[in-house]
């Protein structure tokens, strides 16, 4: 069983990551190297999302089919986003 302690530890991580995202902006990294900062901030969001989905939604402990189900939805959304943005002339 996932212990309450682990849940609490994850909560702290999420909290810190959110703060770091704003700190990245505050120190002016966005102005200096936009795409580096962009990658950093999105990566932090991704990690946070994985934590929430994996532990709070306990997907890690469920049959993989649920993960694939969600990845299917995500893939569809990404296909729409990426292909439509790429088509812009």
């Amino acid at each position, binding site marked *: *069983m996932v212990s*309450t302690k682990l*849940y*609490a530890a994850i*909560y702290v991580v*999420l*909290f810190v990551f*959110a*703060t770091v*995202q*704003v700190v*990245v*902006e505050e120190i002016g990294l*966005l102005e200096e190297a*936009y795409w580096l900062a*962009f990658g950093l*901030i*999105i990566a*932090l*969001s991704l990690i*946070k*999302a994985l934590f*929430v*989905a994996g532990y*709070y*939604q*306990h997907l890690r*402990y*469920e*049959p993989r*089919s*649920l993960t*694939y*189900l*969600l990845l*299917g*939805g*995500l893939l*569809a*959304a*990404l*296909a*729409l*986003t990426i*292909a*439509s*943005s*790429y*088509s*812009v*002339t």
Partner: protein
Amino acid sequence: MTHDDHPRDDGPGQAAADERTKPDDGSPRTDGGRATDGGHAGATGELPATGPAEEEHHGFPPMSSVKRWFVTTNHKDVGILYIVTSLLFLVFGGVLALLMRVQLWAPRAAGEGILSALAYNQSVSIHGLIMVFWFLSPFAFGFANYVVPLQIGAKDLAFPRLNALSYWLYLFSGLLLGISFFQGGSFAGGWTMYAPLNIPAYTPSIGASTAILALLLFVVSVTVSSVNFLTSMHRMRAEGLTLRKLPLFTWSILLTVWMMLFAFAALLAALMILSADRLAGTTYFAAADAGGSLLWTHLFWFFGHPEVYIVFFPALGVMAETFQTFTGRRLVGRKWFIASMLLVALQSFVVWMHHMFLTSINLQIKTLFMATTIGISLPFDLMVFSLIYTTIKGRIRFLTPFLFSFGALLLFIIGGITGVFLGAVVLDYEFRGTYWVVAHFHYVMVAGVTALIGGLYYWYPKITGKMYDEFLGKVHFALYFVGFNLLYFPMFVVWETPRRVFEYDPAFAPWHKVATVGGFVLGASFLVMFYNLYTSLWAGEDADSSPWAHSTTAEWAIPSPPPLENYPGIPSYGDGSLSFLDRLGGSDRAADGGEVTDGVDVAGDHATDGGVADDRRATDGGTVATADPATAVERAGGKSHEHDAGDHGEGHGPSHASIWPFAVSVGAFLTLLGLSGLQEGAFAPGLEGGLYMALTGVGFLVGMASLVAFGRERFHGLEGPFGESWPFEGIENTKTGVWIFLASDVVLFGAFIGSYVFMRVASGWTTWEIVPGDPLPGLMNTYLLLTSSFTVVLALVAAEKGSRGGVIASLLTTFLLGVGFLFNKGIEWDHLFHEGLWLDTNVQASTFFLTTGLHAGHVIAGLIVTLYLIVRAWQGAYLEDSGSIEYFGLYWHFVDIVWLFLFPLFYIL
């Protein structure tokens, strides 16, 4: 061997007969047993006759009662409702089409002919919308509702009330569309609703808004239905019915529903944005500099192309079934047929830009989408050949259902070949916007209708217990086929006519006249059908349980019409063919005892899976699984010998009645009708505006009250599993349903974020000005939401520890944090408003307010559920079964995850 109907005929109850509306009730059934039953289904003959208790059905009104049809949640009833309603919409859409054909009798100047320019445009638009949305899919889903549970061996869908809800939302969305004509004219921008013609600046009538909202409601209905079907079809299949072994009609529906789940989520996003543009004044589609017009085409066709297969697949399933039945041959290359459908279903999401070859998309993407488009056409070749080869060496009986299926295949071949023309981009450039396209997609889509009409004749005896008149059926087909080709083939000949115009080259007029005549012949053929089917209800011969030789699927193994709970026992394919296991664990065949044990073993395995997956659930799962076989099977079988007359839902048997789906739909209907009066976020002053406002308020109250009643009602559905439940073994129905819903929500938010990204890319990513000047309110909200997620986790932990106080305290904290989130957002928005930023200020503000607003809407919905949970927890619920808290948590964490992306995208980057 006795026929499977006989025990029923002798028994006192006659569930089936009692519930039929036929006046000559009680006359002896003439169906003798079929000589060559093969002994499979015959096994049911030995089953004990169902007792009188079953027929009471806890006060469930009979079919002759009007009340029944308002409260029913039974999949067969809902199926009938879908079929009848969709046929009404066929008439509606058909009349609009005939109006158009009359207008097209000759080239008209403005004001000539029976339709004004705007009336013509309305006819064109609403004809398309009705046929695609309100007729084709619901017609197919009438059959899906009726037949799929029977084919997979389930007694009903996983969520019977949600099924009824889907139907009522569908019906009321259709009513809303009808009303739109009386609100200054309905939507007149084509069924593709291209932007920016779809915004009030160009289509100002209130009715146009109502039509959009009607479609929105329809999409909600589809989403509810998709979740329900997917859960049922994956979780509740009979033993031995692995996905590979599913009948082809069920296969086609399964893939259709998967496509619906994702495709309609994208349409939902498109329609929500459009509604916001029309009602609240956001400026997505008017934003020329940010590709607003193109955004609509992307969103619409991302949905629109899968939609083509969504409407066609069920027809393909019907063709596959009827070809097998009426040729007496199994499908050639069945495996490849299924693989082809699967491939098409997946690929349908990456071909949408072939509808946009003439827009400003770049050449690389055109090339890519040309390739995927050819790719998706090929599997259809295989399916067509597979059907044709199935007829070889068969003994083909040209009965009405087969005639229609066969005709459908022929028409589809023509539709397919003319589609290849469109796949060549150079040709597509010139065909764009002409009657070539019109003719092509009618040959494809109406070929689908043709097959579904075949399905109607095919299942009519099953649904009504009566045979239709074969001669009239053939007359219908002859008229239909001639009318069809007279109507659509001339469109190929004069393909240079531009679409949706009524002034065309006079040289084309003769062909358009032929088409108009064909349209009326096609329309008249339906009169024959309606007459035939209606009179056969009374005059028709009684139908055998299977009037067709060589039918294979489970619905033909039970009486026509089937009794309320479908099967005399638990259907199983455990030994390779259909048998019904005795619910008491006894056996009529030597092997059956073993099968019962098998069945329970399967359930046990699932429980173990669940246990491994999540300790917290182990106890619950274990309880179900380790219950003695008799109880477990009885629970699953859903038969109760207890009388609970008048109080449905209180017994152990499954419930069949609830008025709340209807009531919720009334609420939604009134709310949306009221909202149609909104413009730029405000109701017009004066009486009319006040009326719209009042409607909104009343509708909202009715809807909310009904939802609460819906939640509080004790309703026993079926849980399962009953055998096969890949790939969701060990995940309860509700939980599976929640996850499936969340997957569609991923696409919804994905489409919103995608829209933002697209518009930002189109207008220059780095030059885009972020709306909030300060990320700190956003950061505060991130903290609040993260903390609230954490407290939901704590609530679940407390529930499992049995701490009522802990549950209440955690949920209350969640609620307060959520309110804090909204409060903080309110302050922030207020601040922005005072800075002069409003939804319509610019596209940046529009995307910011709408996307974060959609998220806030999710938060509000979550908070309402939280309140409900708190009240229930106060009353001591959830300590033994923490499922509700867990499922709510899944939703809440999802809302949290969405914010984790919205925050950087809208506040930082």
